[in-house]
């Protein structure tokens, strides 16, 4: 274990993540999947330990830098769905730089909370796991039910007739429920019998994720008239210290909740945290969502190194688990401190990266960047999977368009992962797969 080398490799990972954020729609997991694939196929050999720490740097960097893509290029992954709307508003008001900084500050504060919790996690988490394991599947179903119940009617409610008003108001929630049902069914198919070659089994859900969460935004950007708004670069942000701590703290809890429990993604965790802490206002919302997102990615990967539990959460952890096993306690603490270092470096790089993003958007326009995003998504899916993956991506994209067109909540598309995982955990998954005749 050459500590200096590993830390340097992690910092290199941060730089890679910084470049990748300029490819809208490219999730860092896709890049990592390609690296793992190259290693497994024997095309490129990378020392597993070095690969692991490279991934640490990449995931930390991604948690900070991807907000640039979402604020300025509107190509978020699913964890950004809940806060792209306020952040987009900031962008349209010429305050995109400030939004980026708010998200970065939230992430940084949350990382500090994570660092403070490092000594306690090996003691607390095994106990929490033993207590929550019987409830796991039901927890996911509770989240699903809550998401559905909180779908709210939208409409101008102009009709005189009560029945017409009711119909008008309920049209968008019903579209939301339909989206949920379609995405859930889609998820069940992909979970049990993905129509892609088995040697790509470890990225079976990736085309669906890219289709559902990345493409609709890009497509909408290409079709819409996105106004050119001058972005103001500021050297201070309009926020109070207690708001940062409150938002960062709420985001930390949400992120750890999402990191620890399967199927609960950063977007869902952040959404729940926002409700649980009765957050008001765009600012607090943006900070906490940035925090929850960062901790979701970093926390999930940190759990991979947890010495008292063999826990694999999130795609990065199980992709890394294919090639590397952290067998020593030292890895846990080294990983934690490396994350802390990478987080600090990422935040420092956030300012120049954001300025560069503003320049790019100003020069090329969002439509061009979105077209580039669509092309890059197609290329990634083709490389990672096959033409069947493109089919899955296309269907995912159409499902992802429904919330945008019907003005219902985008969170309903999370059913693609919530439903099959929830069913599987409570033991109904194989039964459903058999009933559907998926295995012939």
């Amino acid at each position, binding site marked *: 274990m050459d500590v200096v080398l590993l830390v340097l490799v992690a910092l290199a990972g941060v730089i890679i993540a910084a470049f990748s954020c300029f490819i809208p729609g490219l999730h860092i997991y896709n890049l990592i999947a390609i690296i793992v694939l190259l290693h497994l196929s024997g095309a490129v050999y990378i020392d597993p330990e070095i690969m692991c720490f490279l991934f640490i740097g990449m995931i930390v960097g991604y948690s900070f830098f991807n907000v640039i893509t979402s604020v300025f290029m509107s190509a978020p992954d699913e964890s950004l769905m809940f806060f792209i709307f306020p952040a987009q508003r900031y962008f349209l008001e010429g305050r995109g730089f400030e939004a980026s900084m708010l998200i970065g500050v939230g992430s940084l504060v949350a990382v500090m909370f994570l660092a403070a919790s490092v000594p306690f996690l090996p003691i607390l988490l095994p106990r929490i796991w033993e207590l929550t394991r019987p409830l796991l599947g039901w927890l996911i179903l509770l989240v699903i039910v*809550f998401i559905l119940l909180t779908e709210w009617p939208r409409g101008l409610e102009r009709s005189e007739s009560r029945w017409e008003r009711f119909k008008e108001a309920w049209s968008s929630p019903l579209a939301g429920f339909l989206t949920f049902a379609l995405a859930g069914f889609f998820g069940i198919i992909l979970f049990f019998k993905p129509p892609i070659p088995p040697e790509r089994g470890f990225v079976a859900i990736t085309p669906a994720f890219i289709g559902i969460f990345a493409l609709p935004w890009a497509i909408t950007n290409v079709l819409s008239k996105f106004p050119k708004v001058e972005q103001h670069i500021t050297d201070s942000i309009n926020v109070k210290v*207690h708001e940062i701590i409150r938002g960062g703290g709420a985001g930390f809890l949400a992120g750890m909740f999402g990191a620890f429990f399967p199927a609960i993604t950063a977007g869902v965790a952040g959404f729940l945290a926002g409700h649980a802490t009765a957050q008001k206002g765009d600012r607090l919302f943006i900070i906490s969502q940035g925090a929850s997102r960062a901790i979701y990615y970093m926390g999930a990967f940190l759990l991979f190194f947890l010495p008292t539990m063999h826990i694999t959460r999130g795609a990065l952890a199980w992709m890394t688990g294919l090639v590397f096993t952290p067998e020593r306690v030292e890895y846990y603490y080294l990983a934690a401190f490396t994350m802390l270092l990478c987080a600090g470096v990422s935040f420092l790089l956030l300012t120049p990266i954001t300025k560069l993003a503003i320049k790019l958007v100003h020069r090329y326009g969002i439509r061009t960047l979105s077209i580039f995003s669509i092309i890059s998504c197609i290329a990634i899916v083709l490389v990672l999977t096959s033409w069947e993956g493109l089919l899955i991506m296309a269907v995912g994209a159409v499902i992802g368009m429904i919330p945008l067109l019907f003005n219902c909540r985008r969170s309903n598309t999370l059913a693609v992962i919530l439903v099959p995982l929830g069913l599987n955990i409570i033991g109904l998954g194989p039964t459903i797969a058999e009933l559907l005749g998926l295995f012939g």
Partner: protein
Amino acid sequence: MKGIVHFTVGATIATFFKDVMHNIVTAASPAAGLPLIIGGVYGFLPDFVDFRFAKYMMRYDYVIDPDPENPDPKEIAETIAKAIDEAYEKKKSIFMQLHTIPITSNLWRRYTVKFDTENKKVIVTIGPIVTTGKIPYEGTEPPNNVAEASFKADVIHTYEEETKIDILSGPSFEFRPEEDRVKIIFLPFHRRWSHSFPAAFLMALPMLLFNVNWFWIAFLAYVFHIILDMLGYMGSNLFWPFTKSRVRGLRLGHSDNAMLNFSSMWVCVALTLWNVNEALTEKVFSASFITYISYTTVLPLLIIGLASLVVYLRERREKETPEEAEVKEALSEDLGPYT
């Protein structure tokens, strides 16, 4: 309280039933955890019924739908004044809906309504164009944008603050004659019959078809929602159909208070974990309930609470009237984008 708190309280209530927890920890059946879902749903149900159904079943005597191109503040003010007087003269409740003014799919014209109870006037101001994020466009207020109209009746429990009508759907009012005066009730459909104990019983009744435990879980989850709401300002009509008006809340705190909501969630999680531990044959921890609650709940919340108090004292809110608090509470329960 926020919807998630009611939902979580309802699910937590289910964990107090030993049979339910035993079935869950032993995975006795695929439906073992269904009572948790029932608890959550029934905990959320009262507000769900109000804002998803009751809201759309209201019949209005007056509907204000200003012309987007040329909104007339005088017409709006006069209609409101007329409605107040009609309630007073005819001694019957008058219901009014105020619509928003959409300009495009993302832009709205704001207007405000203020009840000046001292001078018996309604003041309507046509404001600027705003985005869906409520950011106004400077300089877009129309000329002659303020008007007022007088009403004859004495009005009680009015709001010092202006009511802003801007995005999505607008508010509704009930002008109810009470003795010699007219009372203005904001969101008249909310917390009427839905937030009553008889309604809790009726709503939970169908669960008896399945299981007695499910009935009790549903009933208690619903009742706890009502009790928690009574800690706030708006209150509820607790004994519908035997009573007609809302009973005022205990005013112990705002329903959108972050500390209250967060503490409630924390307590629910702690209690749930305690109940799981009790149900397990091999306990994860062995401590008395007092010790457990002290370390997991009281101590952490005390620390967070003290920190919040420090912040609050440094940034004290402007004093608001109970009526303003009622309005804020009602608005916070109607879920909208990112509220």
